[in-house]
């Protein structure tokens, strides 16, 4: 494995350089073992195309999304203003996030508090890189002929109307893209949003992620593709619930592109 080249904003500052892009890793991408692999896949793609990017490292802090959705506007705004101070002090212009929740918050909710940046989600970045010819997907790659279904993250799809970028990326894999009945604007939540990730579900007769995984499994896919670390957790748990982890993998769009190119 080639070594990852990662520099922080502070590293760039020390040499008087300015990166083209800030990679906002997010809490899940920094601390969750499964999500860290997605983070690394994104870095491999960035390294592969030679983009000059930085991370904030220990200067990054929670975007405040789960606090805001849970109703704690105070905590959200504290987080947001502190993050905005850091971002503005580094004169950050363009941000790519590894998580649709950070993406939504930074893009839509930071401007009212003085944080104005061009924010994209990593599936949008990968799509741009493919369109620009900077990332090529090898013919007959690792996922040729595999059946893949994409689970729309609510905060990328309905929340921000990004439905095509991840699908266009997946189409390059030479695999069969199968759509669930509830997809795109009708996509069914994984159950983690709105701070549900951090609490037990309210009383009901089923878990949301079981309902969603069941739907995905009716297509008999080889891979359930996701674009969100929380969906990753929920769908992985769902696949385990049905004892299908041998047959069905849950993978992020970035991991699929990275592996297809042996990065």
């Amino acid at each position, binding site marked *: 494995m080639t070594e990852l080249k990662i520099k922080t904003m502070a590293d760039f500052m020390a040499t008087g350089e300015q990166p083209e892009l800030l990679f906002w890793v997010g809490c899940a991408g*920094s601390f969750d073992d499964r999500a860290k692999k997605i983070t690394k896949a994104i870095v491999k793609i960035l390294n592969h195309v030679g983009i000059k990017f930085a991370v904030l490292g220990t200067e990054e802090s929670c975007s405040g999304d789960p*606090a805001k959705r849970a109703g704690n506007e105070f905590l959200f705004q504290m987080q947001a*203003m502190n993050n905005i101070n850091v971002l503005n002090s580094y004169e950050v212009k363009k941000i790519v996030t590894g998580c649709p929740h950070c993406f939504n918050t930074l893009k839509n909710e930071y401007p009212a508090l003085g944080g104005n940046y061009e924010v994209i989600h990593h599936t949008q970045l990968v799509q741009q890189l493919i369109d620009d010819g900077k990332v090529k997907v090898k013919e007959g790659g690792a996922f040729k002929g595999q059946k893949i279904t994409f689970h729309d993250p609510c905060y990328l799809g*309905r929340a921000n109307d990004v439905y095509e970028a991840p699908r266009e990326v997946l189409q390059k894999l030479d695999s069969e893209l199968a759509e669930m009945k509830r997809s795109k604007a009708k996509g069914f939540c994984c159950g983690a*949003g709105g701070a549900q*990730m*951090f609490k037990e579900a309210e009383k009901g007769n*089923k878990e949301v992620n079981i309902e969603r995984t069941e739907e995905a499994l009716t297509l008999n896919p080889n891979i359930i593709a996701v674009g969100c670390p929380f969906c990753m957790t929920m769908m992985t748990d769902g696949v385990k619930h049905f004892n299908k982890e041998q047959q069905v993998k849950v993978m992020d769009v970035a991991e699929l592109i990275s592996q297809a190119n042996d990065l």
Partner: protein
Amino acid sequence: MGIANIVFIVLFLAGSALFFVNARKIRRNILLGKDTNRSDNKATRFKLMTLVALGQKKMFSRPIPALLHLFVYVGFVLINIEVLEMIIDGAAGTHRVFSFLNFENFKLYDLMIGVFEILAFLVTFGCLAFLIRRNILNVKRLVMKELNGWPKTDANLILISEILIMGSLFIMNAAEKNLGSTYWFPVSGFIAPIFSGTSESTLHFTVEFCWWFHIVGVLGFLNYLVISKHLHIALAFPNVFFANLNPKGKLSNLQNVTNEVKAMLDTSFVPPAPKEGEVNSFGAKDVFDLSWKQLLDAYTCTECGRCTSSCPANKTGKLLSPRKIMMDTRDRLEEVGKNIDKNKGSFDEDGKSLLGNYITNEELWACTSCNACVQECPVNIDPLSIIIDLRRYMVMEQSAAPNELNLMFSNIENNGAPWQFSPADRLNWANE
């Protein structure tokens, strides 16, 4: 002018005045909400209203009810031309005043009457199909428990009234045909034979009776609207016009929180003093704390349940139903409105509130904020914004968050992450 015309004019004016008085009360109730600016981007708003309200764009994601609804909608809108004729006839003592439109070489009036009959037939067909869907097929979203009682009766009353109002038109025309009328009656022509052999006086009486039934029915229906979920026929238009134009993921920013946080981070910042009479509270406990748009949403909701039938919490058996959130908001607002009426214009504190007496914590904590309800609503109602405002009150005013969420809050506060990890370890992934 005969006595009948005077009776008609009195009835018409009384019916219109009563509607006007009640419509003003609804307007007053909506304006109990807080101000929010929705007068920007007029061109975009107009386009959205044309597509979504006038053009029914979002209805067509479910084609069968959309088509049936289109019949009823188009029929109801166009038949108003005939109602206008009836009003003129009733007031002036004329008979079919628009019949001068039958020109020598083009029978425009015949065409109009014929088209109205076909539309009335489609309205009847649509309403019958809706009655069957609600009462025989028991389509799930139309028989859920929040519809028990008045909401179910309301829905059936609307459909039956529309069928009766349309039916009176057919019987009137059929009787008139038997009296020798030669206008084009494509639908009532078929039922005209039921009057064969009926005396002329009975036919005249039937025409008169149906005419009065129809016009009084229309006036009655107009006044029924104000206590019914059927208000959407009028409010759908302003509701879509004033809808949120931001990406659905963007939640509102609480400016009073911003002021406090700024003052905390920067001691030189002096927050603006609250306006006179304004209490600085966070989130919403009652309808007064919501915006006028959220209250307009509540009056616009026609309880179709597309939101609830797509809600992941509701689908998996949780208590939350976005439709119930909207119904509760309207019920509470009407209760407040009646309280104000009783107390000559001011609200007499009744010890109740939307949060607690109508909507429970358990419902609110089931939401995943996935926006499916917002996406599905054919008239751009936003139940999620109410859920979030009520959560804000629970968390910031009542400190009533579930324990696990309090733990998440303190993790973010102390470690900058929702889990208990040290911020110093944030870049460890790079070297693992």
